[in-house]
Every structure is written in C-alpha cells, then in structure tokens.
C-alpha cells in the first residue's frame, strides 16, 4: 500500500443483514464488522472461499444493497461523503461520475448494440457522440471483440463476448473508483492479459479498485493487497441472499435451466 496516500474509500465496522419477511422475518447476518481502506491507484482484492459473499461488499459500495451498520465513506479533497445514508437521488450522479461497476453478468438492454452499450456511460456525462464512438471501438478492438459484432445487440453473444462488452463499458468512463466482480472469469488467456493491462493503466491514472478475482494468476498480477474476508463474512454455502433478488441477472441465469427443463 502506498503509505503516503490517504484513502479514497474507507469502511469501518460494516454490517449487512437481510431480513426475509417471507420466512417469518428470519434475520440473515452475512457480514459483521468489516473495515477496509483503499487508496487512489491501489487495487485491493477480496479474498475468501467461493460463496462467502464477496459480491455483497461490492453491491453495498455500489448502492445495490443497503448498509445495515457501520460506515462506508468516500474521501474527496474537499471533504468526505458518507455512502451509508446517501439519499436515493444522489446515487445516479455518483455512479455516473465516481463509482464504476463491472458486474459478473451483462444486464442486457434489448436491441441496443454492443457499441452503444459501451458508449452509454460517456454519453450519460454529455460527452461528444463521435468521441464516445471512437473510444468504444478502441476498447472493443483491444478486447478482441470481432468487429462484425459491434453493431449487434449482445443478447445473443457468448458468455466471454458479453463479458468483454461489460469490461469495455466499465473501463471507458475512467471512474475514480472501480468495482470489479470477476472480470476475467470467462476469458481466454489473451483477453485476460488485456484486462490486466487495463487494470494497470487504471492504477497508473490513480483509479482505486476493489476487486474479486478467482484466477490465481490474475490476482497475483493486479493485487496490491488482499483483504481476507473470513471472520467477517458469516454467509455459508446456505446463504440464500440470492433468492431475495430474483430480478437480478444472476438469479435469472439460475432459473433458466429449470425453465428449459420444463419445456422439454
């Protein structure tokens, strides 16, 4: 860690509990007392066994999950911004300008081309369409997405192709804080190398990154520090947090097989 650099993101004693009303108000504590500090230009990698709930932390920082206890703070030059009680209308702009999120799955917007999906974060900031277009194509080319796919909607793409669209969309706007949820999971080694390069370039321009990487080799190459979650994450293999969010793409992919089976 760069000792002379003050943190951009800090968490202190974070708790997360889901209350499941359909199960008689059962309380499900998934995180207790997690603290962290992340400096600009640093990549902190969440470590812990699969299913421990590493994505939960990223979703709290991105505002998808509420913070049940503790503090989650962004530190700007002119003051701190507390995220745990941020009004809903502030998140939209915070995500546009500060927090970028590369999720594991692309939430496909029907009919929108891959190129436009990638351009959107820049257009949302009012960037020139021509510039956004060029930057999107540069990134898609770097990530080796075949040019014939750029004008097509990613709905029909393979997992790896969708993920590259998602990565391009996540990196294009150069947010000062990036949340990376397994960006290399379904990529071949050449494209993994491109993602590692993108992460290193982001570090060089001072981006603070919080990431999940299952790939040991990628983790070693990008991580400045590891944040062990054991002891803070109470979720085990039975954690049904995902069952509380069926609209998310994760669970939609989980329901697809059974749906297909019922059709046969």
């Amino acid at each position: 860690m760069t000792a002379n650099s003050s943190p951009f993101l800090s968490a202190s004693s974070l708790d997360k509990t889901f209350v499941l009303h359909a199960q008689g108000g059962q309380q499900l504590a998934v995180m207790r007392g997690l603290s962290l500090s992340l400096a600009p230009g640093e990549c902190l990698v969440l470590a812990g066994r699969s299913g421990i709930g590493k994505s939960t932390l990223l979703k709290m920082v991105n505002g998808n999950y509420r913070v049940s206890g503790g503090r989650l703070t962004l530190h700007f030059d002119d003051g701190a911004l507390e995220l745990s009680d941020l009004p809903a209308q502030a998140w939209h702009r915070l995500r546009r300008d500060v927090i970028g999120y590369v999720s594991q799955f692309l939430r496909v917007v029907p009919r929108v081309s891959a190129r436009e999906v990638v351009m959107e974060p820049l257009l949302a900031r009012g960037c020139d369409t021509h510039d956004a277009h060029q930057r999107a194509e540069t990134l898609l080319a770097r990530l080796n997405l075949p040019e014939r796919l750029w004008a097509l909607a990613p709905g029909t793409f393979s997992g790896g192709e969708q993920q590259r669209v998602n990565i391009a969309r996540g990196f294009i706007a150069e947010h000062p804080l990036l949340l990376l949820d397994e960006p290399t999971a379904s990529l071949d080694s050449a494209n993994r190398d491109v993602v590692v390069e993108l992460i290193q370039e982001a570090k060089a321009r001072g981006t603070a990154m919080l990431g999940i990487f299952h790939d040991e080799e990628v983790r070693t190459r990008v991580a400045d520090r590891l944040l062990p979650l054991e002891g803070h994450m109470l979720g085990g293999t039975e954690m049904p947090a995902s069952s509380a969010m069926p609209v998310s793409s994760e669970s939609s992919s989980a329901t697809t097989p059974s749906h297909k089976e019922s059709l046969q």
Partner: protein
Amino acid sequence: MKRPQLKRPALLDARNITRLYGPNQGCQDIDFTLHQGEVLGIVGESGSGKSTLLRVLSGLEAPDEGQVIYHSTQQASAAAGSATENLDLYAIGEARRRALLRMEWGLVHQNPRDGLRLGVSAGANVGERLMALGQRHYGDLRAAGQDWMERVELDPRRIDDAPRTFSGGMQQRLQIARTLVTQPRLVFMDEPTGGLDVSVQARLLDMLRTLTRELGLSVILVTHDLAVARLLAHRLMVMRQGRVVEAGLTDQILDDPQHPYTQLLVSSVLTP
C-alpha cells in the same frame, strides 16, 4: 478529486396528497420530491392507486388534500427573468394549468388512442402542440413532424396518413413524438409499453432511454412491470393499497427490498 455536485434542483413537490374514491381506493399521504433530470418509477399492482396518483400529479384530477408544487423556470414576465416560480398546480386556475400542461409538461397515455387524434394525419398530430404554442408556418410544422417521426423511428413518408392506419406500437411512438415535440421539461407516462408486443416494447424502451438522456427530461413513469422500471427509472416508489410502502434507488429496491410487500412483489416476478 473534488466532491461531485450531487444535489439537483427540485422540479416537482408532492405534498401529502390524498385522493380517495372509497376506503383504500385511490392514494393517500403521498409525499415526495422529483428532481431535475430524474426518472421516477411508480410501481405496484392494479388497484394500488398509482394511476390515481399520476392523474393528480399531472393536473387531471384535484386531490382531496395536499398540494402539487411545480418549480417553473419559465419566465413569468420579462422583469422576472429566469427566476424559479413555485406554482401550486390546483391553486393557479384552470387557464394557467392548461397552459402549463401544453407548454412545459407532457402526458403519454397507456392507450395511444387517448393521446392521439386518430382521424387527422400523423403530421398534424405532431404539429398540434407546436401550433398551440403559436407556431403557424406550415413548412416548419411539417419539417418538425418529419424530424420527430424519424426520431421515434417512424417512416416520415407516412406523415399524411391517419394514425388509425398505424399498428399499436407505431401509434405509441407517434404519441411520444407528439408529446416531446414541444420539448417539455416534465413528462408523465402511464404504462407506456403496456399493450405492446414484447419485440415492440424493447424497441420503445431503448428509444425512451435515449430520448430522456438526450433531452434531459424529468419523467414520472407508472408501470407494473419491474423489468421496465429497472431499465428506465433511477428511483422507485412502491405502492400498495393507496400508500407508498417503500421508496429508493431502483437497484436497491429490486436487489435488497426491505418492506415485506416489496419482497413479495420482487420475488414473484417470472424471469424467462
């Protein structure tokens, strides 16, 4: 890096609005602020009061109690400049309210037949709101008609055809063109993708996303479809039996719902 400016000016305030037709029929104690450039989704099942609320907010029906305050930046007089003026929607009088609806607001009905004049040409439908603002030049009106037909992906060569010869999806796009041609600041939409085929719905959703971004529109959107809400709305209010049971960031309402009813609603959605 400096703290980003996260506060946005308020555009519309709903203050303790109640409009009841009977016990739990209608809406009760609705209180919220819509900010500039925000898309607010109102979700809930049939009979939850969301359409009643939209009628009250959009000036179609006076509430039993409460106020709708619109922060207008349209200059009231030359001397007033562009200062904000707070208009109490149901206290400003019928004429002023109608003018507001015509000039600064837009309303997209679920059924395009309610928002279009089916017997007159597509071009006349688009031009009508401009004419109400005083534009009379035929060539300009026709050019605006063609331009907006293209923007909503309708064939501009059909400008002289009556909307009754259009499909439902085309009629809905024409209604949107007719509404947006005057560049309103605030648009109310009641289930805009409601009666449409899924393929047509996707196309319309993409178009609405692009238009709201490009025009910097503020939108209040009523829908029972959570997937539509996820794609279009920044913030959600969940209604049940006339009351708001939960409100917040769209992703948070859908991924981490707090209220028992919202949890039920979210977990009842079928995902193909």
